[in-house]
């Protein structure tokens, strides 16, 4: 009990976040299990959404590292997801005979997806992070578009001789029994589903672990110092490029892993799935959840992935409703009157809680 009291506020929040994810996972597992399934608690649509939700949660966490912790706006995060998705799926297909166990193959695919996204992150990060503000945003947007265009022209085939790659035109001559894995603009025609809700849960936990350990380390404090005041941070000897790159590349790697998880939960995949709109979607999760607040990102990503499905009864109006809700939420959360009202309310609640404690005489 004492250790819990002495814990810093950050660690408390972090453990609460882990706890929240575990509890939600356990509840959903219970609801989804065959015991209660007959009651129809969890609709099949929602069940099918679980893996994408996990992938989007990891995406939101990863982007929150760039936008919230590093303080740089990225509008091309779906590009990293795309790199992870395609490299991971190719790896999963190629390793079919090498690693028979689906779980181990998924793990290998996620790791490979993350590695490829890391490489992309380094390649993009080194030139790009010299820019700042809106210029960085536009360059990440441009990179997102470039990655999409490149993948749309990529052809990968597999036969007994191994993997064959081609670009722009499909000139791959496959040996007998070979098949195309990635088919240019048509994308990946068939994917063996490997992802599961449990795998998604584990990836979220891993992402949280990586992010919390990074932000609570010496490097993490350096990154946040850069965000708060770059000039001051530089003057005390913090290496700007190194720490910016560290956060950016970690974020890219997580996005790649999320991409692989997402792709291996789909039947087919095209590169245009990961366009500018997807990047924006994830950015909306991060901003609505709160910059730098990981638990906020998780809730926002999950809620906003379910919301369009839940609004399905409004049929044609659902995206319109979504847009209006987005604008209204932004207007309300930034309204000075509402803001001061909520902060005074929070202060009152806190104050009365303190009073209650003092009356209870627990002391100390």
């Amino acid at each position, binding site marked *: 009990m004492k250790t819990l009291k002495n814990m810093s506020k950050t660690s408390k929040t972090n453990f609460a976040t882990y706890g929240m994810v575990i509890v939600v996972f356990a509840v959903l597992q219970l609801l989804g299990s065959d015991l209660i399934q007959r009651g129809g608690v969890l609709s099949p649509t929602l069940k099918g959404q679980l893996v994408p939700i996990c992938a989007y949660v990891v995406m939101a966490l990863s982007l929150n590292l760039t*936008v919230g912790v590093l303080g740089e*706006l990225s509008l091309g995060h779906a590009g990293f997801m795309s790199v992870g998705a395609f490299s991971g799926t190719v790896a999963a297909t190629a390793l079919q005979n090498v690693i028979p166990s689906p779980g181990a193959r998924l793990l290998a695919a996620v790791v490979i997806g993350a590695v490829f996204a890391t490489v992309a992150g380094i390649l993009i990060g080194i*030139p*790009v992070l*010299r*820019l700042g503000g*809106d*210029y960085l*945003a*536009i*360059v990440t*947007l*441009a*990179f997102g*578009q*470039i990655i999409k*265009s*490149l993948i*749309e*022209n990529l052809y990968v085939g597999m036969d007994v001789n191994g993997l064959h790659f081609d670009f*722009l035109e499909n000139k791959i001559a496959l040996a007998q029994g070979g098949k195309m894995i990635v088919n240019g*603009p048509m994308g990946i025609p068939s994917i063996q589903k490997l992802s599961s809700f449990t795998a998604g849960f584990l990836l979220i936990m891993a992402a949280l672990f990586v992010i919390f350990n990074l932000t609570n380390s010496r490097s993490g404090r350096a990154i946040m110092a850069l965000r708060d005041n770059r*000039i001051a941070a530089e003057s005390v000897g913090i290496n700007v490029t190194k720490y910016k790159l560290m956060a950016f590349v970690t974020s890219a790697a997580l996005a790649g892993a999320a991409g692989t998880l997402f792709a291996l939960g789909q039947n087919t995949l095209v590169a245009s799935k990961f366009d*500018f709109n997807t990047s*924006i979607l994830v*950015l*909306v999760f991060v*901003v*609505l959840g709160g*910059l730098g607040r990981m638990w906020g990102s998780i809730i926002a990503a999950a809620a906003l992935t379910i919301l369009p499905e839940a609004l399905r009864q409004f049929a*044609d*109006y659902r*995206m*319109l409703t*979504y*847009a*209006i809700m*987005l*604008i209204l939420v*932004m*207007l309300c*959360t*930034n*309204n*000075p009157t509402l803001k001061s009202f909520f902060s005074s309310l929070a202060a009152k609640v806190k104050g009365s809680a303190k009073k209650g404690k003092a009356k209870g005489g627990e002391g100390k």
Partner: protein
Amino acid sequence: MSFLNNLINGIGLGSVYAIIALGYTMVYGIAKMLNFAHGDVIMVGAYVCFFASSTYGLHPLVGVLLAMAVCTVLGVVIERLAYKPLRQAPSLAVLITAIGMSYFLQNAAQLLWTPNPKVFPAFFTLANPDGTSRTGVDLFGGQLTVRFTTIVNLLVCIVIMVLLTWFTGNTKMGKAMRACSENKDAARLMGIDVNFTISITFAIGSALAAIAGVLFLSSYQTLVPTTGSMPGIKAFTAAVFGGIGSIPGAFLGGVLLGVIEIMAGAYISTQLANAIVFAVLIITLLVRPAGLLGKQVREKV
């Protein structure tokens, strides 16, 4: 000759990008926000002109004026309702609101005008003596074709740029705009109505978007509710490319972007044309971080 043809087509497309980019650049310069809904204002303008000329049979020029009027009102209303309350808010909140606005316009258009593509009429044609119509003039015995749209695009673009340069440089309102983009608080102390100035900027930007929408669609002709988003992104790229906040920069950026896009499509690869455009943008920004004609602002410590 095919090189010249491509160059001319590129300039024609680039002029439209330049007009959109001028709107982007003005709004960014003064409100310091990325107005993602700008591309969708283009789409609204195009729809208004389409219905005016196709359904109601009005003269195209009337259609353009109508589209400009509707877009001006739309731009000012958007600014009042969605952006003005967020003047003091962090820039990310404004960005998300702008994105929300963009979704709103796209989906509203989908509901109002259905997602079915509409064929936009080609306005700039000349009747031949035998009753058929021509879309361009042939030079050098048919080796070089200059489409009328290209000529109109370029002319309109140059006129707009000259007018805007004159406006921002010489009128009281233009000076107020420049003052606001330098420092809003100081401008307010000098008695400038900052909110009104920003509204006027949005009005001008949106009117330009309407013109650009009509010009773009009379070359590309397929009108759907998402028509505006790609030219919007491209024009934004053009504005950054030329140096955001600078009027000649937006013009130069737009024209260069159009030429690069057409040339890359013709000589390198059609599928990679967009990728090449963006790659050129990245390289330019790495060499000149403020764009081609942007002001290099030194950081104050």
